[in-house]
């Protein structure tokens, strides 16, 4: 296979592709790219380009010669010939020969591109209006990749960065020297996934699956865009591929999986009182016992006791607050950056039930997580999320686009029942362009954006949503 490919590619290349490197640096030309395929495509491109230039030089040369010498003002008298079959046959055969010569390496490269043999890594790429979703099929890793350029940059309110419109929040991380297969499909309309440096461009079509592949040879960041008109924000769904060494890739997969697992712990797992107590005791001994003493009696005069203290048996919220945020002016630290939400929930539960405190209350990790989400933070984050996920349709000012996307100012959904509002964001609205955001946004982000929508643009409903409400949201609880 390999040798034949080389024969097929033939001698036509080589010499012709030499002067092209200069072009690439000016940003005038197709990138040479970082795969064997992209280099083949590049040399095909340069070959056909020079062939075209040669044809043009000859044709226009003859034409200009004629225009100059056979003009009436120079006294040219017109000849009378108007047919010469031999000449016509010759000038037909030459282009045919050139084209046949071009067809051979073209077919060879095309066949190579279509090599369907098995790959080491399969990535499913799904086009959405207007973002990409990447599923690493063998790794159970999956995420959305959104444009990360700010709206202010787009609307010229701030400086445009180096990678303006070609930057995303999460890169498609891939190992080098590994055959990677892309399985492309779409969620709504046809998109097309293109990375020039990989010479991969393939349409993503709803209901159908397409495939393409690549072997990246050089670590680096390669940027591309959607190339099939897919609606309003077609220009705002870039592709960013980050090629890393195999080791770094393995490490990246491990990290992203650990993050996912931590998240799942928080949101997914239901903690029983016993589990929290067991975990809590560990945490207590590690983080609290030095001051509050293992028996919870503290060191009188220096560190208060927890046994039967107003904090530990009183209002849960106050208890959570002091653990999360500490108590200014005292030795009580803020633990929010030191302990995970699970650990804090466990230790608070432990403190409220150990040493005869026996309140019987279990604090869930979600309650802890909610703590850090006060109204201000919800609104700040909500505005960011809104800009990223909602403003494209509903517009930054919430007015929507009449006839296409409903406005959010003063409408029933944002002013009315908060449950219905959460539900439409979490689960989408069937038969409309409103997507289900549960897989695209975190519970925190959804809580923030719902809160934002209910309080921005003069809506001022005044209520807010906690992430835990969203995390446990089930379409059924309407």
């Amino acid at each position, binding site marked *: 296979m390999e040798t034949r490919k080389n024969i097929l590619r033939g001698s036509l290349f080589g010499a012709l592709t030499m002067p092209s490197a200069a072009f690439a640096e000016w940003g005038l030309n197709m990138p040479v790219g970082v795969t064997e395929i992209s280099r083949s495509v590049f040399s095909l491109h340069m070959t056909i380009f020079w062939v075209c230039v040669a044809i043009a030089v000859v044709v226009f040369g003859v034409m200009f010669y004629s225009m100059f010498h056979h003009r009436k003002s120079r006294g040219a008298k017109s000849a009378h010939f108007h047919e010469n079959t031999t000449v016509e046959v010759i000038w037909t055969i030459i282009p045919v020969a050139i084209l046949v010569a071009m067809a051979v390496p073209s077919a060879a490269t095309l066949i190579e591109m279509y090599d369907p043999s098995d790959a080491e890594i399969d990535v499913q790429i799904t086009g959405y209006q207007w973002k990409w979703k990447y599923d690493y099929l063998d790794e159970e890793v999956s995420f959305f990749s959104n444009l990360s350029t700010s709206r202010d940059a787009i609307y010229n309110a701030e400086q445009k960065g180096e990678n303006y419109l070609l930057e995303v929040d999460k890169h498609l991380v891939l190992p080098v020297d590994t055959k990677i297969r892309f399985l492309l499909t779409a969620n709504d309309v046809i998109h097309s996934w293109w990375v020039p440096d990989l010479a991969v461009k393939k349409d993503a079509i709803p209901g159908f699956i397409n495939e393409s592949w690549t072997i990246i040879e050089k670590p680096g960041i390669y940027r591309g865009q959607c190339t099939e008109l897919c609606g309003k924000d077609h220009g705002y769904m870039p592709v960013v591929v980050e090629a890393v060494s195999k080791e770094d890739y393995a490490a990246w997969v491990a990290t992203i999986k650990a993050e996912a697992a931590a998240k799942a712990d928080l949101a997914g797992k239901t903690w029983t009182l016993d589990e929290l107590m067991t975990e809590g005791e560990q945490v207590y001994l590690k983080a609290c016992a030095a001051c509050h003493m293992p028996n919870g009696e503290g060191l009188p005069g220096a560190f208060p006791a927890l046994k039967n203290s107003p904090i530990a048996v009183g209002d849960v919220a106050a208890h959570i607050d002091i653990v999360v945020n500490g108590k200014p002016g005292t030795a009580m630290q803020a633990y929010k950056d030191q302990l995970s939400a699970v650990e804090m929930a466990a230790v608070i539960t432990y403190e409220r039930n150990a040493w005869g405190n026996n309140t019987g209350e279990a604090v869930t990790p979600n309650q802890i997580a909610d703590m850090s989400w006060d109204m201000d933070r919800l609104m700040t984050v909500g505005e960011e999320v809104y800009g990223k996920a909602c403003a494209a349709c509903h517009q930054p000012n919430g007015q929507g686009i009449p006839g296409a996307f409903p406005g959010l100012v003063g409408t029933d959904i944002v002013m009315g029942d908060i449950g219905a509002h959460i539900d439409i964001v979490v689960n989408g609205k069937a038969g409309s362009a409103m*997507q289900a955001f549960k897989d695209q946004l975190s519970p925190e982000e959804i809580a923030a954006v719902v809160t934002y929508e209910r309080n921005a643009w003069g809506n001022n409903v005044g209520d807010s949503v906690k992430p835990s409400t969203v995390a446990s949201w089930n379409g059924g609880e309407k």
Partner: protein
Amino acid sequence: MSVAADTKKLVARLVLGTVLMFGFGFAMVPIYNVFCEITGLNGKITRTGESEQPLVVNQDRTVKVRFISVFNEEMPWEFEPMQKVYQVNPGQMQQTAFVATNPTANNMVAQAIPSVSPSEAAQYLQKVNCFCFDRQPLDAGATAEMPMVFFIDPEIPEHLDSITLSYTLFDITDQQQVAEAKNDNNDKRSTL
């Protein structure tokens, strides 16, 4: 013959041509489908496989078959292949299933549309029993197992050693209701 008569005849022919070409536009739909089924163009596969099981099982090679599930639009179901990857010998009968759950509070109807990649492999992936193109209703909160039995045609060329079969799940609840409303007027209220 007079020019007027000539013209009339000519115009009649040209109008006929126009009508035929208009019809041809529509005829391209079935032609295309037949063409797709023969060539596997676009990874389309036959609606319901009624293929015979081949007698020979080629033990010398295996083909990797990967199943993936895709959701269209805001389709909220959970829908997963029971096992994502199979290594099968060509000719070997393999049974699998997709598990679908409707987590919403509404009764819904879905339809799974299959697609095979690479498209030339479509004609070699034979499905004996499949839920493709079937309408799958699921009550709120219900789960169903959607079984399929397939085998790889032993004729499959050597260079095809890895096949992907995707199912895209479409929410057709609304269409289904419209269809039902049209089909019987017996005051059948929607369960929504």
